[in-house]
């Protein structure tokens, strides 16, 4: 059950993430120290995912990867390193402020195989069969139309293409008082 309209949810989520303060606590929980030491500090400090889908994506050199909800770019940068100069990574996010931050981190890293796009996961701005792999990290739960978002992922993957999606799942119902709180949308 969704307690918020699509438009309200997107506004709450954008505002929440735009105001997020830098902290390395999340990255330290999710990523290996040797991964983090090779990344721009700003990308590490704005890591807001919930797992490490790139680790489980089995990326190969030369693959085309889409990072849905790329935020400040930590997974985008890790994926770009994995696929190498003959691969390509597209980072998609609906929040212009986060894309601006990602742009700076990508430039700082000197990664030339990354493109950033603004857009919605429920209406991916790409032709059919554009990617070999899709990753996302704590993003699908932010959608009020998860099945639509998943159908779009299927569409833009090539036949045989893969997804590795990190997210949070409930083990039991949460009290309605928590589910109705706008802050909970960011989880």
């Amino acid at each position, binding site marked *: 059950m969704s307690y918020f309209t699509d438009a309200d949810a997107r506004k709450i989520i954008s505002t*929440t*993430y735009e105001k*997020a*303060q*830098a*902290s390395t*606590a*999340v990255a330290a*929980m999710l990523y290996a120290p040797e991964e983090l030491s090779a990344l721009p500090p700003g990308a590490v400090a704005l890591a*807001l995912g*919930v*797992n*490490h*889908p790139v*680790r*489980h*994506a089995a990326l190969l050199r030369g693959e085309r990867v889409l990072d849905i909800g790329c935020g400040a770019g930590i997974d985008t940068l890790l994926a770009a390193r994995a696929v190498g100069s003959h691969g390509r990574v597209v980072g998609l996010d609906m929040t212009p402020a986060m894309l601006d931050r990602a742009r700076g981190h990508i430039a700082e890293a000197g990664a030339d195989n990354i493109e950033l796009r603004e857009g919605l996961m429920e209406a991916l701005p790409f032709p059919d069969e554009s990617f070999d792999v899709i990753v996302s990290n704590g993003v*699908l739960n932010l959608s009020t139309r*998860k*099945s639509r978002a*998943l*159908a779009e992922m*299927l569409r833009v*993957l*090539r*036949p*045989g*293409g*893969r*997804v*590795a*999606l*990190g*997210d*949070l*799942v*409930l*083990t*039991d119902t*949460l*009290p309605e*008082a*928590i589910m109705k*709180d706008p*802050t*909970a949308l*960011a*989880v």
Partner: protein
Amino acid sequence: MFRRKLFNVGFEAVATVDRRPFSIADLARYPLFPPEFLDFVRRVLPVERDQNVVHTVVVTGRRPL
């Protein structure tokens, strides 16, 4: 439910490849939640769920050939 959604839209070979509990302390690491929200969650949730509020997972899948 997450895996079921992937199957329902047409993914195959759907699997949960990582699954771990997230505690309130883990949620507190995120600069997204003000202290008063976390205090609210602690008050509303039974104490036995403090260490297991939600689970973090990675689910993989494949588009059929």
